[in-house]
């Protein structure tokens, strides 16, 4: 008779703890983690797309219609053939049906259906169809009013990760952005943040309605260490591939964000002796750390292939690319500065557009596997 309340008590108490303040269910060690480096180097072909009057600040995407580069400052979208030749400016800045009404863009992507999505700095999301007609525009807000008790559950303490880390992805009726805490009560200076913060926010592409936040900061990110960014990609089947600047592993979750497995090899000769930053001298120390420390810099997926780039830091100061076939690393090769894999148009894999603002040029690299 006594047993049942006790069992119930234990069950209920166990159910009350551990959901919000644990890494369990989000991270695991790899089980099948192999190296079979049949590729010693990549033959990279450099293309030099030419866009008249560009700002040389922008975002790239690829689809069966070719290569696209969105000019982040001038608010237009340019299309190129697979040789990198400029074809047309398919979306201009303006207020017409084929125009985007802001000239400061924060992110750009193409959905599986071939629709083009833009995010501006005022959290407006613009959707253009395959014929470049503006078909939807939504405005969503971050409500900054929070209480301590809300910080683990609600979306309010977060903001979209502006700057060079905006990851906009559209999949199955939702758009996803990476987020970070910026409120006084919930940010990277708070130890609790590292245990409870979420990193990805889904929203409905039609209405902007928020869905439950996803993910956690990996335990590999130490308190106030300089490299806290994350990267995510969603496969055709809806699996999430998530990597972090500071973590050697790549984590794979199913479409419900249940952990499936992890894989990944450490980069070659990476300097990861990260310094713990102080609030007083945060940015100065951060700039020094960014020059000398290694970290992972991008993540891309294509079929069974995963591409991850990294910077070694001192003393080698190399930018390198790892290629994985499922969980087996098949290449770890040096690549040019700024190289990130964008996607595939038969028979080439293409890098993102590399913008050189000072020299006013754009570059793309392509290679075969």
């Amino acid at each position, binding site marked *: *008779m*006594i047993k049942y*309340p*006790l069992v*119930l*008590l234990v069950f*209920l*108490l166990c*159910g*009350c703890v551990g*959901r919000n303040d644990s890494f369990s269910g989000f991270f695991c060690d790899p089980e099948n983690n192999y190296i079979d480096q049949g590729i010693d180097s990549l033959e990279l072909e450099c293309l030099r797309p030419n866009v*008249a*009057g560009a*700002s040389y*600040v922008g975002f790239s995407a690829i689809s069966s219609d070719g290569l696209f580069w969105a*000019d982040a*400052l*001038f608010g*237009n979208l340019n299309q190129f053939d697979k040789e990198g030749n400029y074809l047309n400016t398919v979306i201009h*800045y303006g*207020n017409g049906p084929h125009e985007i*009404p802001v*000239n*400061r863009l924060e992110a750009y992507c193409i959905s599986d259906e071939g629709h083009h999505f833009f995010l501006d*700095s005022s959290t*407006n999301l613009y959707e253009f169809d395959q014929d470049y007609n503006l078909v939807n*525009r*939504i*405005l*969503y*807000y971050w*409500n900054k*009013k929070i209480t301590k008790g809300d910080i683990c*559950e*609600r*979306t*309010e303490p977060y903001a979209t990760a502006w700057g060079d880390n905006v990851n906009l992805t559209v999949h199955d009726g939702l758009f996803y952005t990476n987020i970070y805490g910026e409120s006084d009560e919930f940010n990277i200076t708070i130890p609790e943040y590292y245990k409870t913060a979420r990193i990805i926010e889904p929203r*409905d592409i039609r*209405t*902007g*309605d*928020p*869905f*439950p*936040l996803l993910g956690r900061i990996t335990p590999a990110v130490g308190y106030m260490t300089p490299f806290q960014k994350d990267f995510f990609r969603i496969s055709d089947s809806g699996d999430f591939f998530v990597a972090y600047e500071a973590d050697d592993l790549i984590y794979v979750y199913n479409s419900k964000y249940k952990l499936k497995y992890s894989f990944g090899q450490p980069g070659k000769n990476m300097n990861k002796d990260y310094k713990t930053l102080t609030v007083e001298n*945060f*940015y*100065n120390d*951060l*700039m020094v750390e960014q020059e000398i420390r290694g970290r992972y810099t991008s993540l891309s997926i294509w079929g069974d292939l995963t591409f991850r780039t990294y910077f070694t830091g001192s003393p080698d100061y190399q930018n390198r690319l790892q290629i994985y076939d499922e969980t087996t690393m098949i290449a770890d090769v040096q690549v040019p500065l700024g190289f990130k894999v964008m996607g595939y148009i038969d028979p080439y894999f293409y890098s993102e557009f590399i913008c050189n*603002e000072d020299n006013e040029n754009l570059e793309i690299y392509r290679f075969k596997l």
Partner: protein
Amino acid sequence: MKQRLFVAVCSVICMFALAFTTVNVIRYFRSNSSVGDDHNISIASYSDDEDNIDVRNMAVTSIEILPNVIDFGNVVSDTVLSASFSIRNTGSELLYIQRLKADCICTSVESSKVAASPGDSIVVTMKLNTKGKEGKNVVYTTFMANTQEVEHKLRLVAKIN
């Protein structure tokens, strides 16, 4: 007697645990609901708030911007950096600029005038307030002009300590 007392205590604890769990469950489902109570989602209007002149429809001239970039190097925080750019009309038509916009609310931008005759210049001044800022900051001002390439940018760079 002891056994009854123990059962009673356990029952009370269970009730508290159940209540606590219920609160958590409610919060969990609230957090999983598609729209939070406090979220104000709205469809913004799609209208033009700019002036009626469109430089794209004007006779084309040419310009020279000096300089394109102003780099202040290392500066202390809590100051206002002022950067002036000269936009010289090097063509043969009247120069007109519009939609002069900074990409950050920390930066104000103003021009000496909006039109310049051939050979004349327009001075655009960007003022960056570094209060609360740290690290490398790059801010842009963009504008449109009746030139071959309509869009132009001005860049201000500073490392704020």
